[in-house]
């Protein structure tokens, strides 16, 4: 580019002609400016700005409910924004449907895969982009899929049924679909949620290869570790607003955490060494049929001592849910024995187990934990109504229950107008605190905690974690099941790895080799006979 400037040549002022190298403007693949989206009762996006450069991996970091998914659904044309402007490769766009977004070169790998289980890999990939004509040339499509797969090193059988594939491969199919549609901007929504550590490594390799091939990747996550591992830049959103964009290499986990949460947060759970006492809960050789005739629990044995937190690690669907539900008394196992202290509780119903000192924080507080339209007092009665001081099996002492509820709300910091408030009116964090209050009130010998912090904000997570550690320190046995591996690692004194309904390995909480843990979770034995199997 030629530029004229007025300057001094010798003693004369004259026009100077200079050849100027054009400074390459950072090419923006995606710009979202001032995006606002309201849903009835909630503002999901209250003015979000996001600028993603071409050819970078850009992390979008925020807590659950910060508005990340809404923003991406807007970008993909699934939701229409109330206000705001979207530019793709510098062009102002307005998407009416996902089709428009796909045509503009955007593709999304959803958190809950948008794959049809009964369809083959090829059918899933070509759906919506079947090519010209009224009929499908299956063979040609399969060849093209195989070719695209080979190009990016994403090995997958184009004829396999998606439902027969492991989760990591299913995700690969989703990525392949986006590539097949020739999208140059890939959006991945919490892509590591269901993967084993090895599968995560594979995913990182694929994403790096895509970036090196000039594609743009937007990586949605709430995990700081992932931001550091994979992204070039990161944009943090909090409560529907952009709070900052950073170059990943120039920032720290602490800074990002503070941006994400709004205040300094301790990243590690503070806890002292455990002092395990005698055995509090034992299960021997539990067997239970799952759906489809396969054993969901296949001769599983474990034990939890007083004063220790035992975490169960595993990929979802390996019998975790069946295990805790069997321990809680929701299912009776086909064979095996469960001992609470010295008592055999294998055939006891849930109420009997509570009476004997077993407490249970269920996985889904809306379906299992609470009756949302009931008041807090009534919710306090769930599972307790036949046990004094709440009742005697014939009558319920409401006055007493309300008194206890009021007291527990104080002690467990449940913020609500009063015990007569309906549980549905509380925030997720306060609902969870209410459940924890109810479950700990009885000073149980053993606490089963399933996904105790699911969907909670960081403040509530801290509270729940410190509470669980406090219960351990009071000498209770805690069995923790969380699908967030970081939570399991942070909290547990001992980690048991579950795979296909069996415990396949055990780690002490202090020294965990993540790679080894990942291999075990994936069903592989890392180093022959070195793995300690519990009995």
């Amino acid at each position, binding site marked *: 580019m030629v530029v004229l400037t007025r300057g001094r040549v010798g003693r004369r002022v004259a026009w100077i002609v200079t050849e100027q190298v054009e400074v390459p403007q950072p090419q923006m693949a995606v710009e979202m400016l001032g995006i606002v989206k309201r849903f009835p009762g909630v503002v999901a996006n209250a003015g979000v700005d996001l600028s993603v450069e071409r050819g970078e991996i850009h992390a979008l970091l925020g807590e659950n409910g910060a508005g990340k998914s809404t923003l991406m659904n807007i970008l*993909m044309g*699934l*939701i229409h924004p109330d206000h705001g402007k979207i530019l793709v490769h510098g062009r102002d766009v307005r998407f009416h*449907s*996902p*089709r*428009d977004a*796909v045509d503009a070169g955007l593709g*999304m790998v*959803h958190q809950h895969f*948008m*794959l*049809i*289980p*009964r*369809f083959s890999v090829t*059918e899933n990939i*070509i*759906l*919506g*982009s*079947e090519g010209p*004509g*009224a*009929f*499908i040339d*299956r063979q040609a499509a399969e060849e093209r899929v195989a070719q695209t797969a080979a190009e990016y090193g994403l090995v997958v059988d184009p004829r396999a049924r998606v439902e027969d594939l492991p989760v990591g491969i299913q995700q690969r199919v989703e990525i392949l*679909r986006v590539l097949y549609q020739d999208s140059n901007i890939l959006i991945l929504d919490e892509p590591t949620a269901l993967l084993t550590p090895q599968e995560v490594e594979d995913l990182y390799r694929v994403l790096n290869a895509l970036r090196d091939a000039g594609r743009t990747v937007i990586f949605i996550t709430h995990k700081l570790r992932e931001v550091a591992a994979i992204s070039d830049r990161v944009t943090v959103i909090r409560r529907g607003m952009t709070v900052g964009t950073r170059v990943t290499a120039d920032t720290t986990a602490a800074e990002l955490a503070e941006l994400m949460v709004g205040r300094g947060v301790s990243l590690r759970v503070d806890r002292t060494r455990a002092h395990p006492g005698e055995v509090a809960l034992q299960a021997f050789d539990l067997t239970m049929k799952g759906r489809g005739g396969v054993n969901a629990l296949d001769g599983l044995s474990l034990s939890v001592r007083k004063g220790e937190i035992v975490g169960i690690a595993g990929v979802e669907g390996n019998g975790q849910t069946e295990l805790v539900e069997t321990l809680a008394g929701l299912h009776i196992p086909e064979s095996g024995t469960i001992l609470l202290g010295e008592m055999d509780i294998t055939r006891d119903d849930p109420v009997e187990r509570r009476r004997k000192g077993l407490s249970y924080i269920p996985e889904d507080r809306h379906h299992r934990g609470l009756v949302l339209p009931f008041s807090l007092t009534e919710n306090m009665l769930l599972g307790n109504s036949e046990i004094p001081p709440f009742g005697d099996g014939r009558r319920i002492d409401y006055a007493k229950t309300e008194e206890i509820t009021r007291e527990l709300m104080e002690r467990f910091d449940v913020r609500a107008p009063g015990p007569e408030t309906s549980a549905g009116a509380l925030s997720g964090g306060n609902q969870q605190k209410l459940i924890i209050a109810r479950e700990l009130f009885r000073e149980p010998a053993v606490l089963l905690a399933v996904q105790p912090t699911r969907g909670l904000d960081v403040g509530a997570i801290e509270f729940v974690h410190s509470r669980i550690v406090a219960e351990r320190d009071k000498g209770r046995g805690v069995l923790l099941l969380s699908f967030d591996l970081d939570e399991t690692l942070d909290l547990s004194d001992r980690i048991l790895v579950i795979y296909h309904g069996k415990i396949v390995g055990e780690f002490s909480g202090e020294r965990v080799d993540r790679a080894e843990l990942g291999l075990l979770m994936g069903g592989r034995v890392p180093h022959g006979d070195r793995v300690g199997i519990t009995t």
Partner: protein
Amino acid sequence: MDGIIDFFDLNLFKAVLRMATPLVFAAMGGLLSERSGIMNIALEGLMLSGAFAAVVGTYYLHNPWWGLLVALIVGGLTALIHAFWSIGLRSDQIVTGTAINLLAAGTTVFLIQRIWAQSGRTPTVQKLPDVAAQVNVLVPIAFLCVPIVYFFLKSSKLGLRVMACGEHPQAAESVGINVSLLRYGMVMMSGVFAAAAGAFLTIGSLGLFTRDMTAGRGFIALAAVIFGNWMPFGTLAACILFAGAQAFQIQAQTKGIGISADLLLALPYVLTIIAIAGVVRGSRAPAGLGQHPTPN
């Protein structure tokens, strides 16, 4: 021995074909609707309105082929009501289907009264031609529909998209498929098919319309779809099984094999219940049946 050979004669075979024809038509319609994800218990009512419209069309236009066309259009439009309620307004598809069934039953009786001032039955009209003795032209057409529906689902672009809507409407929508539009189309096609089934009952065999003449065949067709695991040829086999039971019952009555007529009459219905209750456990409905894509 002679008795048994005598029992299974050509008449029985033709009777099976005749009994299967309305079931096959209606079941193919139901299959398309359900594969797109919309439950369709309105088949019975759609069939009834088609049967009636065929008579009315033939009566006024003096040609059963025009009568058939009228029936198909009326069937499609009646199904549009079901589509609008269940897709556009997202009302409960069972309730909507029941409403269509009641509407068809009431409206046909009312219109017979208004048009011919008769109660419960229409005058006889001209019928569609037979292609062989006691085999109406609609019979081969019905059976031809099965490979067409099969080929549509298996090999056409539209068919793949329809099945995607039925299995996972959110996924279909996320790749830019207009789920509602396809479902509207398939529900209307189910009305067209069900109307053909109804037209067969009037201008394909009896020559007139009587109140509630479908006698549960729409529900049996739906049972055949479930029994046939939502697959065209499986559904065809189920239709033939149910039709066989009906034909057997008629043959048994005419030949007099000494079983109570009431029991024989119940046979096809009993078979349907057994099929639905027992055998169906292995079959698998479209995963997105009755579900809507994103709620906005």
